[in-house]
């Protein structure tokens, strides 16, 4: 792999005394989409938390763009160009939709034209524009996810960590979200994504990582993972294809 922009090395950590990451290591090349797949509870989200400084690591190193970013503060990581869209519901329930989105620009640098970007984000998600004055808690599940994605588009990151963006999104919205990710990659942004909707995700990805019990089981080109029979059985829902047929 050519010059990785992000590399994690031997991450060990967890919650309380429970160890979740047992020496996770991988590298992500610049301007690619890399998808992490793995069973529920494998520690995928935990890896993201670790990268974004939300989890105290017992061991391990995280390198980003040639410098050590292990245990930096969130603000510092944002300034370094990493942006994180977590899993689940992550809105400010009592603020309006528009104010929620605007907050995505808090860490914006000088050169960014925020009003323009907000409008652009609202263009991508017309439902949000229609509801921009509504309280965010009244959005539907999928709309809340859209809100989060829109919010994350305000910055100009070098690396996007995005945790299961497809949850709750309609197929059309999933497509659109993946399109957004692709266009970001084409502009040179690196995307590291976690997905259970693995087949679609790997289809747009350059690389895939299989994580299991806190360890990297496999790192390879996305298409090779897609075609690996073992992986197909275990993580891509091979069984379903069969019974559907």
């Amino acid at each position, binding site marked *: 792999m050519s010059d990785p922009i992000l590399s994690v090395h031997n991450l060990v950590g967890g919650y*309380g*005394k*429970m*160890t979740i990451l047992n020496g996770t290591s991988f590298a992500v090349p610049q301007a690619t989409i890399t998808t992490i797949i793995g069973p529920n509870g494998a520690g995928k989200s935990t890896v993201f938390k670790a990268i974004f400084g939300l989890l105290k690591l017992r061991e391990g190193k995280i390198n980003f763009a040639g410098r050590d970013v292990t245990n930096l503060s969130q603000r510092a990581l944002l300034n370094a160009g990493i942006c994180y869209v977590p899993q689940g519901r992550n809105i400010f329930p009592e603020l309006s939709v528009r104010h929620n989105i605007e907050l995505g620009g808090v860490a914006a640098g000088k050169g960014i034209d925020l009003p323009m970007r907000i409008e652009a984000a609202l263009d991508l998600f017309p439902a949000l524009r229609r509801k921009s004055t509504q309280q965010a808690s009244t959005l539907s599940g999928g709309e809340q996810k859209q809100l989060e994605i829109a919010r994350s588009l305000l910055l100009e990151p070098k690396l996007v960590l995005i945790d299961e963006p497809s949850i709750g999104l309609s197929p059309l919205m999933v497509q659109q979200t993946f399109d957004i990710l692709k266009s970001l990659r084409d502009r040179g942004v690196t995307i590291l994504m976690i997905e259970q909707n693995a087949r679609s995700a790997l289809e747009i990805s350059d690389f895939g990582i299989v994580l*299991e*019990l806190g360890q990297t089981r496999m790192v390879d080109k996305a298409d090779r993972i897609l075609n690996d029979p073992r992986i197909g059985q275990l993580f891509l829902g091979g069984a379903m294809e069969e019974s559907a047929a």
Partner: protein
Amino acid sequence: MSGFAKPLKIALGLIVIAGLIIVPMNFNRYGLFILSQWAVMTIAAMGLNLTLGYAGQVSLAQGAFVGIGAYAAAIMTTHGWPLPAAILVAIILSFAVGWVLGYPALRVQHHYLAFVTLAFSTLAFLVFRNESWLTGGIYGISNIPRPHIFGIATNKPLPFYYVCLGSLAIVSLAVWWLIRSPWGRAFMALRENPLRAQSLGIDTRRYTLMAFAIGSALGGVAGALYAPLTQYIDPVPFNLSLSLDLLMMVIVGGAGFYFGPFLGAMIAVLLPEWLRFTEGYYLMLYAVAVMLLLIWSPTGILGILDRYMAARRTKAASALRAVAKSRLETAQ
């Protein structure tokens, strides 16, 4: 917990119980009074712990129920009724009033509920004070008799302490039974996620009202013991600050922990007494101590124990995970 811990726990419990029975025998009257007060307050705090700690219904009115129980007992026993009858009436009365007070909880939760109950507690105080025909008003009720239990007079401090301790024992058993029953689990469901609870067939309305009513009834029991303990009551002790004190006992002891109220009441009743040697500074020091305790462990004293136990449990879970991991590795 692991194998040897259970007998250890039982032994510890027996020692504490024996201690509570035997040691006070050569206490002076003051010591017995304080200890009786601890027992009484523990009962009231257990009630609040049920409502707040387990069922998650914030109540700032527990002091008012102690008042209701105390007045019921005072009025009845000064009119010649025996104390057990008065306790029964206190239970029924505060159960009923608690049930009614539970209705707002069906509409509002958390801080809003706290405000409603806060208002109720002040209203109760006003009634105690203003309805002199019944409560003696600001002059209160004096010469409250202490009961004869099985023909034994409990006028003296030691026998009456045993009355309080015995009541505490009965209440403790009842509460223990309640919280380990499915009811207790349903109460916790109210606290953790009422929305999900409803969709699982848990009648949140009925359980909420029950949580209030039972918790309040225990407040009533405490009150019915408080009246003969002090032998004089007036409205002042049952104002909002008693409710707040009881809340403090529950939180400082550890809300939602069975033994929380025992420790919380100990701190609220005994700690100020221990600090009295500092004279004018004792309340200040007490306040500081409470703050330090909470800074140290915001989930209360028993929260610390819980953290320790959680660490042990996660260790076990880690081990299970490790087993799974090695299986995976050999499979490859």
